[in-house]
């Protein structure tokens, strides 16, 4: 009795293992063959995002290869080290692209991609991911509106720090009625990123041209 039970159990286990092996093999094959196309489309998607805030004519290097790892910093809102992409012309840093997190959106984090030129002006800002209310707070996304383009060419010099707020808080930036928390979070995050770039200029723009 015990031996037939054992035999049955072993046979069952062997069947399960055989199935697991066959399907793992199949998965490995598919993974192998999709690995390269996935890497290509990820890189392409990344670059087309970069292109929105920093035209290709602004740099002559491979943005994905020129990176600077920075540790978590409250000004950037990152909990993990992030890569800052460095745009260069003739090996001189002309701009940096960094990913920051605005932790105080209406419903969670808002992830932003920000390009800052060597002279401290913004080349552009885009929202990478957000969970704001559709139809209310989502105008920060460029597919829903042009609001985010207000940041183009802004800087801490053009707009003094005290005015880096939405108009409701007696700042400079427009917002749409019904959703103030969302733009407030974005403005704050962009301001902090600019401050970060200013304070760390020596490190970030080490290769910038001598005029700075």
């Amino acid at each position, binding site marked *: 009795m015990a031996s037939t039970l054992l035999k*049955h159990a072993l*046979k*069952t286990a062997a*069947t*399960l293992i055989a*199935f*697991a092996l066959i*399907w*793992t093999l*199949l*998965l490995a094959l*598919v*993974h192998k063959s*999709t690995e390269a*196309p*996935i890497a290509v*489309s*990820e890189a*392409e*998607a990344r670059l087309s995002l970069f292109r929105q805030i920093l035209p290709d004519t602004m740099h002559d290097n491979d943005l994905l290869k020129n990176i600077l790892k920075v540790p978590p910093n409250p000004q950037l809102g990152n909990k993990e080290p992030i890569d800052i992409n460095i745009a260069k012309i003739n090996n001189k840093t002309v701009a940096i692209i960094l990913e920051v997190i605005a932790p105080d959106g209406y419903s969670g984090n808002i992830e932003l991609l920000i390009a800052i030129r060597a002279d401290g002006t913004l080349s552009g800002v885009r929202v990478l991911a957000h969970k704001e*209310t*559709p*139809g*209310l707070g989502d105008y920060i996304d460029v597919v829903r509106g042009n609001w985010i383009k207000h940041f183009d060419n802004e800087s801490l010099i053009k707009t003094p720090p005290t005015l880096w707020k939405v108009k409701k808080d007696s700042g400079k930036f427009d917002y749409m009625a019904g959703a103030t928390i969302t733009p407030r979070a974005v403005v704050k995050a962009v301001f902090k990123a600019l401050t970060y770039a200013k304070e760390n200029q020596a490190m970030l723009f080490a290769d910038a041209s001598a005029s700075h």
Partner: protein
Amino acid sequence: MGMYQDILKNGVWKQNTGVVQLLGLCPTLAVTTSAVNGLSLGLATAIVMAGANGSVSPVRRFVPAEIRVPVFILVIAALVTIIDLSIHAGSKPLYDALGIFIPLIVVNCIVLARVESFAAKNTSLPSMLDGFSMGLGLTLVLGLLGGVREVVGKGTLFSGIDLALGASAKQFMMTIPDYQGFLLAVLPPGAFLGLAMLIAGRNWFELRKLNRQAASSGENTAGLKPNL
């Protein structure tokens, strides 16, 4: 031939997973904010279901009853991962739009339900057809619900079709000019209301059919029972 027709009819209409069996409501309600999202997830589910049924059916005799559920889950999870990787490689924007819901096909109970109740008892070809028709039925519901929510909520139809079919498909996108949008339809309550209307519509249709049949055959009891 009659058997295959029955399977198809069963999957698409009589036992429709979306509006009759009400299985797998999580993706049904969450993804259907636009027609393209609904259709894409529906088709992905249909492919997984056809694949899962088709791969379980030929080996059903080798799988002891005690481990059938782990084996089924293994097969389904592997197939879903394959689909997930393929979509990621093929269309990154579509992959981003469907997000978490592709991996979640694994835990969609319709898939396991059809493998368990059909593929484990039938030959390969009918099993594949069953999985595909069930998936097709779901696709129709997801597409319809997504379309209605998109039109009412945003005043567009097939927005984002270029993500799935390439930039040249953008011409299929339709927009109602000067439409302000009705936000509720896109928010979660819109999903419940839309699904409720679809179920009500189907039940109304079925009841009317039954009543007509009853009237023509002289019976008067069958007509009142909704087909649920």
